[in-house]
């Protein structure tokens, strides 16, 4: 079999499609990671809430997300909920919501494991200095928990980035969707999916590299060891 990479991508609109797809995949993953992190903070905090209802709701939510497939969550958000609540959003918005919900559950569990590694001596010292529980959490516990669990957060981020391909299933023009489209037009499956693989690898490694740089900047105190 002869390979025809050049002939496929000579048509600049296919290349452009891949680039746009890659940009959308990256943008959705990064945005979902940020909003997911914000939600994860609230969720992990709710696990320590004085109100037991709040604790149980947060725990149930986390279990629900972690024990159902992403694609089902996606269909639920994109097709299930709109039927019930009657809203119509663009495809990417459904995808963003589903990814955010997914991120939040996993991130909150990772954060929770991080809180547990911060010793009681730290919170006691903070209390002794007159810091309120909220200040102690944001100034003392959270930064150390994030630093300690940073590698896990990064793995989770990369893992979800790689699974974002499923959002093609609800019609989002992400990277996988671009590949599927080009494949359907050219029938050059090897070339197309080989290219896709390469792009995913490059993007994953770039994310990892970027997040490692961020780690060194954010947690200089750990490097100082």
């Amino acid at each position, binding site marked *: 079999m002869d390979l025809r990479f050049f002939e496929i991508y000579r048509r600049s609109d296919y290349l452009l499609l891949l680039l746009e797809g890659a940009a959308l995949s990256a943008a959705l993953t990064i945005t979902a990671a940020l909003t997911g992190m914000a939600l994860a903070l609230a969720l992990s905090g709710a696990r320590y809430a004085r109100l037991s209802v709040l604790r149980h709701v947060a725990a149930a939510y986390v279990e629900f997300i972690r024990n159902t497939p992403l694609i089902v969550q996606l269909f639920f958000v994109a097709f299930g909920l709109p039927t019930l609540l009657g809203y119509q959003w663009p495809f990417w918005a459904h995808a963003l919501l589903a990814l955010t919900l997914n991120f939040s559950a996993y991130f909150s569990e990772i954060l929770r494991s991080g809180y547990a590694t911060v010793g009681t*001596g*730290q919170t*006691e*010292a*903070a*209390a*002794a*200095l*007159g*810091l*309120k529980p909220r*200040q102690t959490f944001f*100034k*003392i516990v959270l*930064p*150390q928990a994030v*630093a300690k669990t940073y590698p896990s957060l990064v793995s989770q981020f990369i893992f979800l980035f790689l699974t974002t391909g499923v959002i093609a299933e609800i019609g989002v023009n992400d990277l996988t969707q671009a590949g599927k489209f080009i494949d359907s037009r050219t029938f050059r499956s090897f070339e197309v999916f080989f290219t896709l693989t390469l792009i995913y690898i490059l993007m994953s490694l770039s994310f990892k590299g970027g997040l490692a740089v961020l780690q060194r900047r954010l*947690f*200089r*105190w750990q490097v*100082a*060891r």
Partner: protein
Amino acid sequence: MIDIQNVRKSFGDLEVLKGIDLTVERGEVVTVIGGSGSGKSTLLTCINGLEPINGGKITIDGTEVHARSTDLNKLRTKVGIVFQQFNAFPHLTVMENVTLAPRKVLGMGRAEAEAIAEKQLRHVGLADKLSTYPSRLSGGQQQRMAIARALAMSPGYMLFDEVTSALDPQLVGEVLETLKMLAEEGMTMILVTHEMSFARDVSDRVAFFHKGVMAEIGAPDQLFGAPRHPETQAFLSKVR
């Protein structure tokens, strides 16, 4: 003035403080000695409200520590405490460790807080470590930083809970020197310690705790020279 009246404290079935009475006047240095499990460290954590009490009362300058209406965070700005484990905040520089509470609790601006922090850090001999992270400091330096951190709140009282017990022997001296300096400057302090010669040296009064009871209290020369209580005699003969 710290006034401790008939304070009782239990952890479950175990009563660790069985009615402690102690009054510490402004400018006074009181050291508490005794075996492990005698309740001496627990007393310190009760004084600044980190631990609730089961009976009696503790008042600091007229404010009852464990009263429901008492703002503990506010009270704690008046009573500094330094622990056996230094509890340095590892993610903050020495300067940030010391400025955190003045800024967040007292609401100081950065410049003002840094000026105070620098003064206190110079005081304990760490003026050249301002932008260093705690992991780069020795145990003795970390403990001195913890002392500066407490002092930066300008507390009226300082509590020291076995602050040299976790240190390598060669680092104990530098921390004791710092404590001695504070004592000489007139800081009101309650120290729990195992350093007997230090206690004898700096204290106005020494209290001996035994099984949750303050068995004896007196001037250092009296308590160390001529202990009255048989348990004090037994304890001192063992640690000497």
